[in-house]
């Protein structure tokens, strides 16, 4: 069984509108899965539902993480188990610095993995790790003392999302349109930052509209996502085909039902 397994997953909004209509997916560490689809196909809904956003209800099917029923777990427990979501639109937390937030998050995860007893990361170790990762991801030093996402540019937000991923060391990372709003330099930095983390310790699910991020993160599997379903699967060559031909070939019904 794969580390992350989706079986016939259906996701609906609170008003009952079904957005994700039966998805099967299996992701293991050391794998990169690209989920490619047009706007409004339900990709982001899938990402949010995996992380446990309260506005999305799993109406049918199941999600297993390391054999555990993910649906029964809160977002915090999912993170503690090793799931990570890089947000398309990360939220600002005024008054809370990036450093203080990261230390709290790391300590929350360490606590959970230590059977609920506090096990705070030693400050020197934390600092060393943070500075190292910031340098690798070309995040400027002053970001560490800024309030999380407050007044950040689009590119800064995305880099800090990847910085969080690098610091929290998840086993499966889901990246929700991390490429959107990035210029080419930022895209390269961020994509390489992700690629370097893909290892026997971590697998990645890269959700994107465009093929270009996949120039820097080589996917092992490409899933074409249209109308709430995976309609085609293949290797990296599928991404290039999509880039050349667009999604029309996969959209017998009108694109745009549901929301992105």
């Amino acid at each position, binding site marked *: 069984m794969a580390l992350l397994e989706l079986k016939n997953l259906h996701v609906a909004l609170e008003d009952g509108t079904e957005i994700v209509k039966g998805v099967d997916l299996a992701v293991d560490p050391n794998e990169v899965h690209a989920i490619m689809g047009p706007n409004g196909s339900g990709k982001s809904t899938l990402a949010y539902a995996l*992380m446990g956003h309260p506005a999305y209800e799993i109406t049918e099917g199941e999600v297993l993480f390391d054999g555990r029923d993910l649906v029964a777990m809160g*977002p915090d427990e999912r993170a503690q188990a090793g799931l990570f979501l890089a947000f398309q639109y990360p*939220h600002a937390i005024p008054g*809370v610095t990036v450093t203080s937030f990261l230390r*709290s998050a790391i300590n929350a995860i360490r606590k*959970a993995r230590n059977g609920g007893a506090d096990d705070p990361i030693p400050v020197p170790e934390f600092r060393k790790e943070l500075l190292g990762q910031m340098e690798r991801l070309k995040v400027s030093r002053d970001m560490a003392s800024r309030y999380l996402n407050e007044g950040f540019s689009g590119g800064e937000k995305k880099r800090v999302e990847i910085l*969080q991923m690098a610091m929290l060391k998840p086993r499966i990372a889901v990246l929700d349109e991390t490429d959107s709003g990035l210029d080419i330099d930022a895209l390269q930095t961020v994509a390489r930052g992700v690629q370097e983390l893909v290892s026997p310790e971590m697998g990645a699910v890269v959700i994107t509209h465009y093929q270009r991020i996949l120039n820097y993160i080589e996917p092992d599997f490409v899933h074409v996502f249209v109308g709430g379903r995976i309609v085609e699967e293949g290797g990296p060559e599928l991404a290039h085909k999509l880039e050349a031909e667009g999604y029309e070939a996969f959209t017998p019904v009108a694109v745009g039902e549901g929301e992105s």
Partner: protein
Amino acid sequence: MAVTPETEVVRGIRSDYKYGFSNPDEAEDYFFKSGRGLNHEIVEAISAHKNEPDWMRKFRHKSLDYFLARPLPTWGGNVSDIDFESIFYYISPTEKQAEKWEDLPAEILDTWNKLGIPEAEKKYLAGVGAQYESEVVYHKLQEELTKQGVLFLDMDSGLREHEELVKQYFGTIIPQNDNKFAALNSAVWSGGSFIYVPPGVSIEMPLQAYFRINAENMGQFERTLIIVDEGAYVHYVEGCTAPVYSSDSLHSAVVEIIVKPRGRCRYTTIQNWSNNVYNLVTKRAVAYEDATMEWVDGNLGSKLTMKYPAIWLLGERAHGEVLSIAFAGEGQHQDAGGKVHHYAPRTTSVISSKSISKNGGRAGYRGLLEVAKGADGARSKVVCDALILDEESRSDTYPYIRIDESNVDVGHEATVSKIGEEQLFYLMSRGLSEAEASAMVVSGFVEPITKELPLEYAVEMNRLIQLQMEGSVG
């Protein structure tokens, strides 16, 4: 007197309140205790017990008349349930004040140790006054400061040892008939701090006063007078806690501050009374030419707090700041705020209020900004932000502004926000529990104020906020 054990604590009181322990043995064994209720005989007994000068005795009696004559306020919070007849107005726990912690009775010392005061004194305080019930049982100022002429005494000793100085200012900033609770304090005051900082003396480390109520139905009425002479500086910090009882106690302080030209006074309060304490306090400062007065007011505890630290800017270019945090949980009402009166040209002020309410609590800002005719070029900024954590809780904002001068620059901003589901989800997706995530949002919300505090107090404030948040969600 019967003391309710902690285990019988009424439901609904903050279950996570750490300072709710009481000291039943001690409560039976006080040195001097007045009967319950209030009348001229009690006032006479307090004054006689303290062996006060005649002017103070008369001041007390007259104040009692004012108190009895004044109606209860009908605005702010509900004070109509206070049973003035059941309160003990004066309890002296020890015969004399200690200058060494180990000279205190074991039970009282135990309380201070639990609150960490002797430890804090060693680490980062220039002086400490520790009031237990009505009297300051421990008092100490660094020798170095004594040599520089700094006076830091309990108010009773201040009156005995520096009567002329006290007489010159006592009751001048807050007249005895200012309001019903100031009149009450003026009648039965005991303890509190008397501070004089000589010209040019800057006290780098804070002076701390700690107020502890131990007995049930206690009334604590400390009286503080701070005089900061020309070009001098002091940071005074007060903290307060009480045991959790099923019946109410009353804390009604009066604080008067005079900041002379170019002087600066910062007064920080971390109020963490248990949820059975009415906290009705009058605080007022005057600031002369180029002087600065700052109130940093953190209200986390109490059943009801009504407190609006005030600053009268009387000299040119005087500057005033009120930074206020009010946090109301279940069964709590924080009616906090501040008042600034501009009475001289080019005076400046900032009022910044952050109120948080959760679990049906009610927190608000009530403030007054006044610019008098002649305060040419005055500038002021009032910012009040409210954060509401759930549907049951409430926030109120009453920003009164009165301006009688045309050449002024006055700004007012108010925001009300609810803790966002999206913010919480974002933080929880990083492994924080819902309570931890909420606490983080709240800590961030008050950060503009906590960052003004010395590190130890910022840590303490954040810790108290965490405690308030625990068990509040999920």
